[in-house]
Each structure stands twice: as structure tokens, then as C-alpha cells.
């Protein structure tokens, strides 16, 4: 323990309700899902599900309830269920979010809650899109440390201040919430998109990396950073709280001044 703390009381009074007893509150919702089942129906359509949910349930729980109790064919990706794997970005009430991080009680449950696949990537089935184009852009910015200098026998040193320059962009979980909320990306699928720029930023500003110039050149392309119109959708969508627009601005600045 870093600081000496006063010894906590060995017994305290708990607020009523905390100690136990009572009912778990429930509420009813309508989940309105954009279905796309090309094997049986050519066009996408909306389907409503009426569900009774609990206070701590998330949109992912509602989707599971549909899949597990009503219609097993409803398809969506998910894995970790707590916002760290990036599987379940989707449009919830028109905004990109992770289903596993969006509590139902934080949404307006008096109206149907709409859930659709993220936009701009080829739709495969229900809430599932083809992620390949997204990862293709990611791979193009050379998302790996390039160091052509002397290889030390031990570790490379890095000051805490240098580490802080790119720490924010290391948090990315490649969920595509940002890229698929970008109006430029919707109209021009060739645009690298914010996620790829975020990941380029992560290396461009890493003091151990030697290929910043190459990455800046790639992003200086006509499909690169200059397509960004600073709409801020990406920053709002990012479930990891990454300052996406700021990262893009820093990359633009670096291209102009070539300081790295």
C-alpha cells in the first residue's frame, strides 16, 4: 500500500436496501432490430421484440434474450461482454456504440430501441458486417513498430513523457465505431477512416519508431487525413474515450511540419 490509510471500521451501518431483501426492479422494452437474412428475404426489414428486462441489463442482454428465448436466428458478434474486445459495435438509436456497454436504463425505454448494423461496411446478416475493408485500411498504415537502428541487447528506454504522447491512441480496440460513424467514410469507402489514423498516430508519436515519415506520406494521400472534415462523430462514438479528432489533428499538423 502506497499511503498509510486509517484502519476501516470493522462494522458499519448499511443504508436500507443495500443489506438485502426486496424485489429486483424490471421494466418492459421494445427492441426494434434491423434484420437482414439474405438466405430467406432479399431486403432488410425491421422486427420488434417485446422484452422484460432488469435494471442492470445492457443492449447485449436484450439481444441475447431474443436469440436465446425467441429467435435463435438473430445474428450478431460478441465475446467479452464488457467493452474490451470490440466485437459488438452497432447503431443503437442512431448512434454507434458497443451493445455490451450500453445500459438499457440509460436509453429512452418509452419508445422502441432501434438496433442496426454499423454503416459503410458490406452488410452480411442482421447486425454482422464484413470487417475486412476496415482491417485492410488498418494494415495499410503499417501498424507495427519499425526500428532500423541499433538493436539493444536489453530494453529500449522511453521516458514517461514520451510514453504519454501516444498512450491515448494505444487504447484502441479496433471496434470500428468511429470509422463507421464518419460521413466521409459512408460516401467514400476508400478513405482510410479514423481508426486507421488513430493506429498510425500510435506509432508516429512513439519515440522508439523510425517510420513516422513513411506513415505520414501514406496518410498524406488523397484518401488520407485531408478527407477528415472534423465532424467529431468519431470522438463521440469511441467507447474507449480516445480523443480521435485530436489524434487526427495531430497527424495533420505533423504532416505540415514534418516534425517527427
Amino acid at each position: 500500500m502506497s499511503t498509510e490509510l486509517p484502519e476501516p471500521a470493522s462494522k458499519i451501518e448499511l443504508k436500507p436496501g443495500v443489506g438485502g431483501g426486496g424485489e429486483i426492479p424490471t421494466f418492459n422494452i421494445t427492441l426494434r432490430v434491423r434484420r437482414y437474412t439474405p438466405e430467406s428475404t432479399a431486403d432488410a426489414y425491421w422486427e420488434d421484440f417485446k422484452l422484460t428486462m432488469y435494471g442492470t441489463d445492457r443492449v447485449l442482454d436484450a439481444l441475447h434474450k431474443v436469440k436465446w428465448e425467441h429467435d435463435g436466428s438473430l445474428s450478431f458478434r460478441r465475446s467479452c461482454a464488457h467493452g474490451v474486445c470490440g466485437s459488438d459495435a452497432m447503431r443503437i438509436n442512431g448512434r454507434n456504440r458497443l451493445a455490451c456497454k450500453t445500459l438499457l436504463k440509460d436509453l429512452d425505454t418509452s419508445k422502441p430501441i432501434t438496433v442496426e448494423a454499423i454503416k459503410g461496411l458490406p452488410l452480411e446478416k442482421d447486425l454482422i458486417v464484413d470487417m475486412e475493408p476496415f482491417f485492410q485500411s488498418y494494415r495499410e498504415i503499417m501498424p507495427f513498430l519499425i526500428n532500423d537502428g541499433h538493436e539493444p541487447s536489453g530494453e529500449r528506454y522511453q521516458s514517461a513523457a514520451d510514453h504519454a504522447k501516444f498512450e491515448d491512441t494505444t487504447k484502441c480496440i479496433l471496434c470500428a465505431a468511429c470509422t463507421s460513424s464518419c460521413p466521409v467514410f459512408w460516401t467514400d469507402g476508400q478513405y482510410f477512416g479514423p481508426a486507421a489514423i488513430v493506429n498510425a498516430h500510435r506509432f508516429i508519436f512513439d519515440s522508439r519508431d523510425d517510420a513516422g515519415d513513411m506513415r505520414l506520406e501514406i496518410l498524406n494521400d488523397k484518401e488520407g487525413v485531408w478527407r477528415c472534415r472534423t465532424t467529431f462523430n468519431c470522438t463521440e462514438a469511441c467507447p474507449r474515450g480516445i480523443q480521435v479528432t485530436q489524434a487526427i489533428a495531430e497527424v495533420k499538423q505533423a504532416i505540415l511540419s514534418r516534425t517527427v
Partner: protein
Amino acid sequence: MQVHKYDVVIVGAGGAGMRAAIESGQRAHTAVLTKLYPTRSHTGAAQGGMCAALANVEEDNWEWHTFDTVKGGDYLVDQDAAEVMAKEAIDAVLDLEKMGLPFNRTPEGKIDQRRFGGHTRDHGKAAVRRACYAADRTGHMILQTLYQNCVKHNVEFYNEYYVLDMLMVEEDAYREDGTAYKQKRVAGVVSYDLATGELHIFQAKSVVFATGGAGKVFKTTSNAHTLTGDGMGIAFRKGIPLEDMEFVQFHPTGLAGLGILLSEAARGEGAILRNSEGERFMERYAPTIKDLAPRDIVARSMANEVREGRGCGPNKDYVLLDLTHLEPAHIDAKLPDITEFARTYLGVEPYTEPVPVFPTAHYVMGGIPTNIDAEVLQDNDTVIPGLYAAGEVACVSVHGSNRLGTNSLLDINVFGKRAGLSAAKYAATADFVELPEDPEKFTSTQIDAMLNSTGTERVAVLRKELQDIMDANVQVFRDKDSLDRALVVIEELRERYKNVSVQDKGKRFNLDLLEAIELGFLLDMAEVMTAAAMHRKESRGGHYREDFPNRDDENFMKHSMSYRDATATTEGISGIRMETKPVIFTRYQPMERKY
């Protein structure tokens, strides 16, 4: 059906699989098959750190680390493997640093290190700073860094390819003493492409299993929905034993009802546990170190409070983690992520309200038995040429009966690398094993049966019953009666599983079908865990038998080895054969495990 040919096929793209791929991919024609996109793997959820005796901030060495690992595992650790891991830990961290991992740094710019439970200086004298970390996102950074390096080395991924079966042949062979036996050999794997519903056969000289854990056997778990024990299940069905499956680690502080992990760091920073009477109950169970007692002791104490009616909440089924006596600034500085979990998922403000917590199934210590070169064993000492396993799916065994925090991220790097190197080396000289006739038959029959079934059982119903029964009977407390109760239900569920049908009959992204297949693995894993728990009539590490509360070295200082065997019966369970395997001792003789 397509057939692909590779020198090396790696199943799984978490930390262990990708570490293997980086080595193998540079030396042999390698494919990685993974049911998730690599960066979705659950290695990304790890918070605390990865340990190595770098001695960057204070004196430390690999021998101390070996000792801690052996003692932490309650002496059921194979000491040769623990030595390898502790020695190679240092290079494992340096490898990651050179690959670009953004570790937190000391003021001099070196990789920073912090304390973690059970890691000590000089054989238990005091806590030591051994865990290298990247904020509370160490696993995320390891997963991203390994993926980045796979991209760099052009590793070939088959994403969303579910491996459902392994192709194996048996040959007559003779041991040195002249006795005949059946030598298993691996020919490849069968996989299901999620996007198209097509089966693909991968023929390979070397196959590496790196499919992670099986936490979803339990209801309350820190594990992802996708951790369903597939790799262990496939090996088990092929007659490969599973080692030490009775040992599952339950982490004390999962968010109640959800299982999402709140790191040990919370109690390290001064948080305490309370029951429904507001009592700091750990004072009764561990009067000296109280809330900072080892994971298994704290977890049992919590479960006991609930059992004796002092649980909190509407169903009185959890206790409280109280941080309200801590300064908000202190909480923000040291515990930002986990307090955010409490806010987001339970709507609880940790500054002013205690957080509902309960033990959560966290880590499977057991798995596919391997030696230190990651070669899979078909019995106590016969290697299956060309077959490897690493990571949580494997049992080397470096964790024995209880894994120390930060030793798994280390395990996946050290033994993932070894598996990749071994697999590539073997493939350089070996020949392909001929594919059996109709290699996809077992899998296609299983899938067709599921799709065409008119059965009335639903996957989600059976899975919930399984998870409930496991939480109730095979969790931190076990005894003969509870294990019997679990087994009756498991056997019943296995019967009912034959009558399962899926609603989605399509070929594209049929996750309904895959959940049904995953349930089959879960049922097998639950059965083996319970059988092995029944067999071990002692208490050690993560396995606590109320009817045998003491460690019994005389009868049980040995690994359990469970085999699928239609003709055998163990502890009244038909279809499982239980054997044992000696523990490897090098330096340390067993002592009482006291902290």
C-alpha cells in the same frame, strides 16, 4: 469441402497462438485458424500485468520467481517447467518491448514493475515488484502488439474459422521394453467457416492448439462468452488425457451477477469486504492479513458468508467491496478502470456506495498435458509427434493447483513461443500424415444432425441449467454430495443434449448452430472437472473439499489425468478413466503453504 495444406496450423489467435505464429510464420508455411478476429481474443481482457524478474526497480531473480510459482501452486507445479518459465520470462518481456509494447516506465525510462499477490523476494521474505504492466490494460497491449507483429510478418489468418475436430490416426508401435502400444499421430484439423457454413480441412505436419480456457462452464465468470473449452474438448474426444481439471481458480472480486473482474489491486489499495450486517468479515477468517489473504481463502470466506445468510442484495447472494473510506482522488489515481466498470455495469458509485461482488470463475489451471517444449502427451510420457498446445488450454504444468496473478500472460508468451519454434522445427523434417478417409465425416454428421433435428431442447436452457448447477456445486466449496448432485444433472443434460435443435437453419453466420456445438464442449468439460474433483479427496490450492479439508501429500501429490474411455468407470461415472502422473521436483520439497 476444401482441403488446404500447411506445414503448421495454429488453432487460436490469443496471446499464445499469435506468439507461436510469429515464430512459426517466419520459419514454415503457417496458417492461424481462429473463431474470433485475433484482436477479439480474451487475452485482451487481462488487467494487472506480466511478471518477470527484470529487477528494474529492486533486487530480484528468476530463482525467487520459480519458488513463488511452485509455492503458489501448492507444490503441484512441475518444477522443471516453472524454472523454464521464470528464466525465459525476462526475454519474453524484452521481446514484447522490442515488438513495440508500450509498457509503463520508471522515471529513468525503464520498464516499470509493481507488486502482485504471491510474488516475493527471497522465498517469501517480503513482497517484490515483479509485474511489468501497461496501465490496467496489460493484456490488451500484449494482444495488440502480437497482432501488429503478425501483420508485420504477413501471418496468414483464417478469421472466424471454428475448428471442430482434429484428424488423428493411431499406429502400432513398441516401447523400448518391447511392449506394444498405439501411437497417435496428428494429420490436421476440420474447421467450419462462419461466413459460408462450409467445412475446410487443413492438413498439416504440425498442429498447435492455443484455444484458451473454459470459464463458461460456470455461470459467474470473468471469461468471454466464447471461452467454451473447445480445444480441450476436441483433444479429450480424441483420447488425449486432460490433466488436473479439478483446479479452477475463482477470483474473489467479480461484479455480482456479472462476473466482470475487479482486479486484486482494489484490496491492495485498501478496499475491504463487508457482509449484509456491515461487518468486515475477513477479520474472522484471516485475523492478521484480513482482506489481503490469498485468492482461494478470500473466495471461500465470501461464499461462506453468503451460505450462512449474511449475503446482500435482493437474493442475499453477494457481499460488498467497500471503498467508501478511501479518498476519491486516491481511487481515481489507482483504480480508474475498475471503478468505471462498477459505475457502468451496476450503476454503483464506488466513492459513496459499496460495490456488490462475488467470486468469479477465472482461470482453468488444468488442460492438455504437454512437456516443456509444448509437445502434447498421449499418456504420462508418450509425445504425439507434431501436436503442440500452449496457453490456458495447456497444462505444462506451471500453475499447479493455483495460478499466481501475472503468471498466465507470462505462460502464453514463453510457451507460445516454444510451441511455435517446436512446431516449425518438426515440420522442417517431418512428412504429412495421410488424411483419414472422409475426414470431415464426424463434423458434417454432427452439424447435419443439429440442423435437421426436430428435438425440443433449447441450447440456452440447457446451458443455463449447466452453469447454475456448476456454480451451486462445483465452485469454491465441494464435497461428495455436491459433486454427486452436479454429476446427476450433467449426465441428464448430456442426454437431453442429444435432443437439441437449432432454429437457424441457414449457412451464413449461423452462430445458433455454433452455440449448440460449443455447449457440447461445455458439457464434456463440466463432466471432467467434476469427475476429477470427485477423485481428488483432499484440499489443495483452488480445489477445496469440505469432506477432506487438508492437503494430503501422501496420497495426492500427483497430477490427475482424465481420459475419455467408453469402457471405463471412475467414481461411478461411466466413460471416464482416471489415472495419475507424478509431479516433477527439482529444487523445492513441499512445505506448508503459509503467507
